[in-house]
């Protein structure tokens, strides 16, 4: 287990460096953020030089990347064009997004597994077919469309909750956006748990378990469910990263003051340093989440530990 953990951690390092390098390269080597900042308006040479120095743009690329990496690892994310510390911005926005992501993940996990398990146990039945068709529809409708539909139906027509989220973004306010955020993945979780359950139900060891005289409930709980949920948990962990991407749209639609909204706004005004900082944080979350999934996977499936 220790060897395995070490290997996974070692594996994570090049992925993190590679991904941040990729982002940094894309943003700073292919465009001139200062020009974007000025918005095409003329800017005095002195101001421009100061700005370049401030964002280390007067240095060679590798030095820039080195400084950026050092800052990132010491948790110094720099400042926005308007002079705010990105640290502060992220620190303010992160808890909101974390809350949103946790709620979305919980919705996915609970409803996805429950629906998926029942559909899988009665494969081919009415419940199964209904769930399957609904999941296809949900997968097909883009998140931003879902967002508008939910906003319109639950926020405007039914008036159950406010259609947009205020600056405080409490748990209750986030139910609607979290549902929208989690809905597409929810459909995938349902489909995944359904196929897993159906597959394991016909596995040899499940038949052997029945032959031992175990009750049906125990067979399903101990032998079918545990084996089926291993890939589902892996999916949920990897999905945390996807939720970060989805948060950009959802937070934009519902006006949630989270990290996705920060990115959304930074993109709108072309504020590259903020984009790089926020995306790097997201990559970090994604990589760490994947590491956690790998370790959890090993805990759940004994075969992995020795591989």
């Amino acid at each position: 287990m220790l060897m395995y953990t070490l290997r996974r951690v070692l594996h994570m390092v090049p992925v993190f460096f590679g991904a941040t390098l990729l982002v940094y390269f894309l943003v700073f080597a292919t465009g001139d953020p200062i020009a974007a900042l000025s918005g095409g308006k003329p800017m005095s040479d002195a101001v421009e030089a100061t700005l370049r120095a401030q964002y280390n743009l007067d240095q060679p690329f590798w030095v820039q990347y080195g400084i950026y990496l050092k800052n990132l690892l010491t948790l110094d994310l720099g400042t926005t064009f308007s002079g705010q510390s990105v640290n502060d911005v992220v620190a303010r926005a992160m808890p909101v997004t974390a809350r949103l992501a946790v709620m979305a993940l919980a919705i996915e996990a609970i409803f996805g597994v429950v629906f998926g398990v029942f559909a899988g146990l009665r494969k081919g039945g009415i419940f199964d077919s209904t769930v399957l068709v609904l999941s296809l529809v949900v997968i097909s409708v883009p998140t931003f469309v879902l967002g508008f539909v939910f906003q319109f139906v639950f926020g405007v027509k039914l008036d159950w909750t406010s259609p947009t989220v205020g600056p405080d973004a409490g748990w209750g306010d986030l139910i609607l956006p979290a549902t929208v955020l989690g809905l597409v993945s929810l459909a995938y979780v349902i489909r995944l748990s359904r196929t897993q359950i159906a597959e394991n139900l016909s596995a040899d060891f499940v038949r052997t378990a029945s032959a031992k005289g175990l009750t049906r409930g125990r067979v399903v709980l101990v032998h079918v469910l545990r084996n089926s949920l291993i890939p589902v948990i892996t999916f949920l962990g990897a999905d945390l990263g996807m939720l970060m991407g989805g948060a950009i749209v959802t937070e934009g639609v519902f006006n949630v003051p989270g990290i996705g909204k920060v990115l959304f706004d930074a993109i709108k005004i072309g504020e590259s340093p903020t984009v790089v900082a926020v995306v790097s944080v997201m990559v970090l979350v994604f990589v760490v989440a994947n590491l956690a999934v790998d370790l959890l996977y090993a805990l759940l499936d004994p075969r992995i530990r020795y591989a």
Partner: protein
Amino acid sequence: MEMQNKNEQPLLDMRDVEITFNTANGPVKAVRGANLSVMQGESVAIVGESGSGKSTIALAAMGLLARNGKVTGGQILFDGKDYAAASDKEFRHIRGDQIGMVPQDPMSNLNPVWKIGFQVKETLKANGLGGGDMNKKVAEALENAGLPDAERRAGQYPHEFSGGMRQRALISIGLSCRPRLLVADEPTSALDVTVQRQILDHLDNMTAELGTAVLFITHDLGLAAERAEKVVVMYKGQVVESGPAIDLLRNPQHPYTKRLIDSAPSLSSHRMENEAAAQKSASGTDNVLEIENLTKVFKIREKGLKKSDFLAVDDVSFNVRRGTTTAVVGESGSGKSTVAKMVLNLLEPTSGTIRFDGEDMGRLSEKELFRFRRRVQPIFQDPYGSLDPMYSIFRTIEQPLKIHGIGDARSRQNKVKELLEHVSMPASTMHRFPNELSGGQRQRIAIARALALEPEVIICDEAVSALDVLVQAQVLELLNKLQAELGLSYLFITHDLAVVRQIADDVVVMKDGQLVESGKTDDIFATPQTEYTSNLLDAIPGGQLLV
């Protein structure tokens, strides 16, 4: 039947049982009007080919049919009570403590995510044997099944067990609650013969001690006759013959049973007739293949980052005489397939030489190697994997001709027809695709493809192991016929000594990468020189029944 044993009620009595599966192509009757009875403490074996319904009928007795399967007729009486239409709940009362099961494949029948001990423990608990020192009870159950160091082993996961150990764990689960009937579905067919014998012996002793009745399901008539008092032969979903084991074996009545006994390799005692090969084997010194000090070392990664050497083939030397069959026999891990791959030039030897027709193959250039390919051809084990499913039979057989630029389109087509005829397949087969053919038919196509280039040597890597007995006999006969007609030399890689007996002139016995002994088949079967070989011979099921 009860007439003769009127004061005794059968433990399991299946009468006129019909089992139907709902498939995409409509209902299929897997078992029709089958009768089967097992007395207290009696051992009964159901023998049949794949698809004969033998497993289905046994599973029906435990209510474990697949979801699309249903008992659609007859009675299933266990201890006098009819279970033909019983619910899962009713079956649960008899599973475990009344009827136990030892399944076929030890690899897939243990749940990979739970410890062995847990899987034994839950069996005991489910049948009211919980309480007290469970760990001790579990260790005891495992020990009874012949698992050494049971207490420690109980704390391990299935993937830390070898195949034989897993099967012992499954036997311990099957017998842990002292059932009155044990259903053993091909309990050892996935294991090496020596392990198979140990486990069957142990199972025999345990069930005799406990007075457990056993229902064996097997494709091996020899095994059935050796391990059961009563044999039931099934064919196409019906029971065609049943009776006392020895009687049935010596005096078969139904033509199907006769056919089975005729082709059962374990019961045969001599090589298939082939005069030319016999002569060459006796007199010839004309070696088509000379293998000298062949060694292969694999680098394998151990836990962590260390790498270590694994000696797969260790200093092996033998010859194959032209026009004869040499068998390389050994259990899994003996290195026999690695030898085959090196002879085929698909793997490079670490050291040693392989001379083909006097030429050292290690020194062949790319071009010479291409020509060599024409002269040595393989036939592989898995009939489902050895033909490309995307290629029609015509393209499959034509491919070697095309690659080597032989003939034009017209002459190639004629050649394909001719080859199909050689392997006794209708010419119309060439428009078909592999998935439309059975395993034996596919293997015959593979032989036709191998013959297309008119090779001198054919390497058969477990070429008949995956086939049913009758089909296996048919393919072996075909190989023998082709050898006589075309003067082919065979290098026959197999784990099955019974097959060796039927086809080989010379034998090489391998174990753990080393050559144990080699010589004429007759000599080795009559007077094996090493203990290992005599153990192997001894383990052939039913080997001593009809001699």
